[in-house]
């Protein structure tokens, strides 16, 4: 209201008009003509003059005020065009061996290679582990305090990120898998502890909370 009243008497100061043009050009979905600026700004404004100031202000900046036909727009400075590149990511599915290995690490971490092989019932190739390490979905955990002090594997932050998990504890448990129809038979007596079991929870505590 007060803006309208003010405009009846005199136009806002030119610095204020410059702000207006800046905001309008920024938010507009397409280039804006001076006539359109005039329609949108309070009565008595001089968008052409405000534009000239704004143009000067953006000289040498990361973006510029450019003329497109008879309209105006904000555009990236041409010398910075290379920043507008993003690596596009071609997604490829992980191999079955890799995803199974990853699943075992996620559910049983920290876990040694021998344990992974025991759970999968198949040898784990060096390449599979390397691939997961390289993707930064797994990393080395603490060494197991058993003979040979084997290294263990744990999942990383970027693994959690990728799968939209806040922590490995949020992985669906066996119960959830069964409810989702992904697992159909009865639990295996004496099976390895699954996430959610007290046992494992304490193991994970060690991992995540220190």
């Amino acid at each position, binding site marked *: 209201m007060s803006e309208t009243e003010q405009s009846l008497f005199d136009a806002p100061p030119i610095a204020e008009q410059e702000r207006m043009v800046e905001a309008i050009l920024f938010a507009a979905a*397409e280039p804006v003509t001076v006539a359109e600026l005039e329609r949108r700004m309070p009565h008595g404004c001089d968008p052409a003059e405000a534009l000239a100031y704004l143009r000067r202000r953006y000289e040498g900046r990361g973006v510029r005020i450019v003329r497109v036909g008879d309209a105006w727009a904000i555009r990236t400075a041409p010398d910075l065009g290379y920043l507008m590149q*993003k690596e596009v990511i071609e997604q490829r*599915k992980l191999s079955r061996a890799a995803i199974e290995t990853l699943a075992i690490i996620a559910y049983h971490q920290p876990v040694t290679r021998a344990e992974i092989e025991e759970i999968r019932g198949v040898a784990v190739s060096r390449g599979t582990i390397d691939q997961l390490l390289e*993707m930064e979905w797994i990393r080395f955990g603490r060494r197991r305090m058993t003979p040979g002090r084997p290294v263990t594997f744990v999942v990383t932050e970027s693994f959690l990120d990728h799968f939209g998990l806040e922590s490995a504890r949020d992985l669906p448990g066996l119960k959830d898998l069964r409810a989702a129809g992904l697992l159909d038979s009865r639990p295996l007596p004496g099976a390895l502890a699954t996430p959610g079991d007290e046992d494992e929870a304490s193991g994970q505590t060690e991992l995540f909370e220190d």
Partner: protein
Amino acid sequence: MSDRDWIDEQKDQSVSDRLAAEALIVDVDGFEGPLDLLLSLSRSQKVDLRRISVLQLAEQYLGFVNKAKALRIELAADYLVMAAWLAYLKSRLLLPPDPTEDGPSAEDLAAHLAFQLERLQAMREVAARLMARDQRGRDFFVRGQTEEVARSRKVVYSAALIDLMRAYARIRTKDEFRPFVMDRHDVFTMEQALDRMRGLIGYVGDWSDLESWMPEGWDAHPMRRRSSLAAHFAAVLEMAKRGQIQIRQGETFAPIQIRRKEGE
């Protein structure tokens, strides 16, 4: 409703509001549950929620419920549950405290109800303040013409959570059929030991330690050694029972020795 409106509404409570509160009776649908109704009723007391009379509020609520009944308005179950609880609270508030009774005092219960009302009220107020903020797309705006970001290729291996779950389920399901294969890896059964010893017994002419008859490869791993020893011990007991061999042990924990029974 903005902040302002809220405050104004609080200030403007008058007789007409009280009349409006009476009119609540015909509009139960307008309330989001019993707590909301209680909060509305509490406004007629025109005091800070911290100093509210819960007793009076309970009476108002019960009055409301009775009127609704008289008007044959069907109240949802949670309104009736609240009514029952408030009736109980009211009686406890009116009676002198019973020192033998365990559990929270009527005052504690009343204070908790006041806390719940205050909290709900506070949430309403901050919700109004939140909605009164400048909002994106209404008061401030994002860039209208975003710039295309050029793309260069990079291969990344990915998997969805569902793949991970399926893989894990696959492994675990396989597990459930595995005990017959996998779990016997380290188990030597008595039947196996019997078969084996039957073939070997012809060579056991003189007393020899049972342990020297363990199959190859079963003495290194402790679990396997224990399993095969137990199986062979059971097998030789069985064979002794059948009169095929003889067993002896010099003393407790001494080596167990076996030999073929003469004449076999």
